[in-house]
């Protein structure tokens, strides 16, 4: 086929659990679909699947990633089309199996096949650095590290960046999730610069802590769709940066005050 797309595979990973990998995967994937890209989000957390619930697609699952890898069904049968966006698909994880069901080579083969039909393949990696993490990164071109502004999450992120680089996945990008501007201002929370100092990788975006995420997760509707929340806007900006648009960090995203107030300060010394 001369019309083959050659998509980009992006793995969302963190090392630490509970920092928002699945939420990030769902929102980035949906965001890219809103921007008109064809996207498949792949849940690699076999045995503890969540992405289908967050996307509100749980009741549509017939086959899963293990069925596809083991050849119980064709790849097309395993893909679930999103109920809102036509170009968005989900390949759910198996719930009744464990991480030994998929091998890195099989994952790479699968991702390579998906790249022929999709612009972006978003791989939602499980927590940890064991088997599940190993096969999740096998087919990826780009790694996105999610961390929260806590020393433990940053430490794990640092470890993961090291492993990724050893595996040849260079230049991972960073998302700082659940930042609370007022706490940063008080000096009670690590700010953007503290985290960037330690991790020394490119920043893809900052997502504020937002109640709206809890609501949207429970509704099975990624926050990026309605975009009435700060977090939803932040995720949309991240999706735009992924497709190459230049988007400034939102006020809420920057660590201290907005750029404008900084300039005022410089001018008037206030």
């Amino acid at each position, binding site marked *: 086929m001369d019309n083959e797309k050659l998509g980009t595979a992006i793995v969302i990973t963190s090392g630490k659990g509970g920092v928002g990998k699945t939420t990030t995967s769902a929102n980035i994937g949906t965001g890219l679909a809103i921007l008109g890209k064809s996207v498949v989000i792949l849940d690699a957390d076999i*045995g503890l699947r969540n992405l289908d619930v967050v996307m509100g697609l*749980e*009741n549509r699952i*017939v086959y899963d990633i293990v069925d596809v890898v083991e050849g119980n069904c064709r790849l097309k049968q395993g893909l679930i089309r999103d109920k809102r966006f036509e170009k968005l698909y989900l390949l759910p994880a198996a719930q009744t199996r464990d991480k030994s069901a998929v091998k890195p080579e099989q994952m790479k083969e699968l991702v390579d096949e998906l790249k022929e039909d999709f612009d972006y393949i978003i791989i939602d990696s499980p927590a940890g650095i064991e088997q599940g993490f190993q096969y999740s990164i096998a087919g990826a071109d780009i790694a996105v590290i999610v961390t929260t502004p806590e020393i433990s999450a940053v430490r794990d992120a640092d470890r993961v960046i090291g492993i990724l680089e050893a595996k040849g996945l260079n230049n991972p990008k960073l998302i700082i999730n659940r930042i609370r501007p007022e706490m940063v201002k008080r000096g009670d929370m690590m700010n953007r610069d503290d985290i960037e100092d330690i991790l020394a990788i490119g920043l893809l975006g900052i997502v504020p802590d937002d109640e709206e995420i809890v609501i949207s997760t429970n509704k099975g509707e990624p926050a990026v769709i309605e975009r009435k929340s700060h977090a939803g806007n932040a995720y949309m900006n991240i999706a735009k940066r992924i497709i190459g648009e230049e988007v400034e960090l939102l006020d809420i995203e920057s660590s201290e005050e907005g750029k404008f107030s900084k300039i005022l300060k410089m001018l008037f010394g206030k």
Partner: protein
Amino acid sequence: MKKESITFKGVKEGVYLEIVGSDIKQIKNELKTKMMKSSSFFQGTTFLGVKADELTSEEILEISLVLKYKYDFNLRIDGDFFKEIIKSYQDEETGENLLSDISKEGMTKFLHGTLRSGQIIEYNGNIVVVGDVNPGAILKARGNIIVLGSLKGVAYAGLDGNMDVIVAAYQLLPTQLRIGEIIVRAPDGDVSEYRLPEVAKICNGEIVIEPYLPNK
């Protein structure tokens, strides 16, 4: 032409095969199709023997050997014991067999407690859960499924295409429901919760869910 028929009968000592008719070729064919459908059903059960009044002893032996070597039956060679068992299940006056074909109805598995996400129960018969089935848990039965609690996971009844089975629960709120070859899911959006037991079955090629009315 006379109809040849074979049926597996279950007694508490094990199972046996009852054959009516004498066309050995047709009997073997029928056995083959029957075993294709339900070979795993008999795994691990004790096979008592073949009851066939119209066949020769060589033919009976042949069928026993096929069951033993081809389908891995656990054969118990004890002719007298078998005869006694057969006798005890016959109607004294008419001589008619009182047992039904167990490979049709299937046996029933009882599960006590909550089934949680990731747990899968597959059974070649009916399943009764005395407890809840949480989202992410899967029940697969060749026969019917009854849940004495809330069914929020996935339920497949009639695994081999049987459309005459039902799925019933005290709270029938499955993520997905399959009966025979038909798959349905809950509608998107909020569904008002119905607090009484409901039964799902197939009506005119569609899965319908109706309230369970005890007086009906």
